[in-house]
């Protein structure tokens, strides 16, 4: 009787340990959601209609991009319940794909990230996003719930900057 109770307790402990986060299989690292061109980006934004959408353009070689990215990960977690959607677009070249995947695995964004499709002239892509954008990175564009462009953020932003840009639109 005692022995059965002992094994039952051990089994319960083992089950509890298996169910605990420490023993759960590690969540798969976030990966690129694919590649897109100007039309693909417009479609991705269009699918989020009704939400405030922040599109962030970044690259692994861009130090300020890497510095601000964790704030975007935090922002998306904090505001997704209020209707914020974040889309990341890496402008890295195809040869830097391993660096892109490594960066995403390290920063673990819960939002989709795409790589700008290779080929063609970058100027066309840049102008399709914003006519006043010169191509400097990082660069973020915020779209209101009606899909209209509401704010552009050139250069590295702080969490407070991002929050300020989206919070008014989320009301």
């Amino acid at each position, binding site marked *: 009787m005692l022995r059965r109770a002992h094994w039952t307790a051990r089994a319960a402990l083992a089950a509890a340990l298996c169910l605990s986060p420490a023993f759960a299989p590690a969540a798969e690292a976030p990966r690129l959601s694919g590649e897109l061109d100007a039309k693909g980006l417009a479609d991705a934004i269009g699918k989020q209609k009704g939400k405030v959408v922040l599109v962030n353009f970044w690259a692994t070689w861009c130090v300020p991009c890497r510095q601000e990215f964790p704030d975007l990960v935090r922002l998306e977690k904090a505001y997704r319940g209020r209707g914020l959607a974040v889309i990341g677009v890496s402008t890295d070249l195809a040869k830097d794909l391993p660096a892109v995947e490594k960066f995403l695995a390290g920063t673990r964004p819960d939002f989709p990230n795409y790589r700008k499709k290779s080929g063609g002239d970058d*100027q066309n892509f840049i102008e399709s996003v914003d006519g006043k954008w010169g191509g400097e*990175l990082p660069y973020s564009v915020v779209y209101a719930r009606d899909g209209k462009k509401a704010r552009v953020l050139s250069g590295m932003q702080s969490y407070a900057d991002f929050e300020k840009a989206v919070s008014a639109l989320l009301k």
Partner: protein
Amino acid sequence: MKVLRLAFCLVALAAAAAGTALADGPAIGAAAPNFQLTAIDGKSFSLADAEKQNNAVVLVFIATKCPYSNAYNDRMKQMAEDFAKKGVLFVGINSNSTEPVEEVKEHAKSHGFGFTILKDPGNKVADLYDAKRTPEVFIVDKDGKVRYHGRIDENYEDAAKVTSPDLKNAVDALLSGQAISKAETKAFGCTIKRA
């Protein structure tokens, strides 16, 4: 009270106007804002003087740490030599607050830059031109007008595969009296780190 309110409004309008000017930079065909800076070799540089002494002046905002700018180091070096033969002065400007003059000197030395390089303390010239990224080019003609603004070419990755040598085409067109077909171009680049 009315005088105070009027004064406040005038100051606000002036600030708004100044802000607009800074945000836009010179358009193609507009006068290039004059400036004076000290080169990394200690010599004084005046854009107005350079315009008078050359057929054109190529201003390129560059960086020591930006991969996009560094990808063009060899191309810039070669272009500066080629342009010099045509009476065109090639000038690099470093406006990054994060890159001190000693670092700019070391970078220029290690890459064998023979062209003039200016340090822009407080990014005043970058603000005058509303330059945002590196590399970013402005061509100023003999009359002090901006004739080209944009990239060096479309392929930062591979100089051998360039299909649109925009800066070279613009200089050639300018020197031959032709219209510059692509006077404004864009490319990805590193943000200028302002103070």
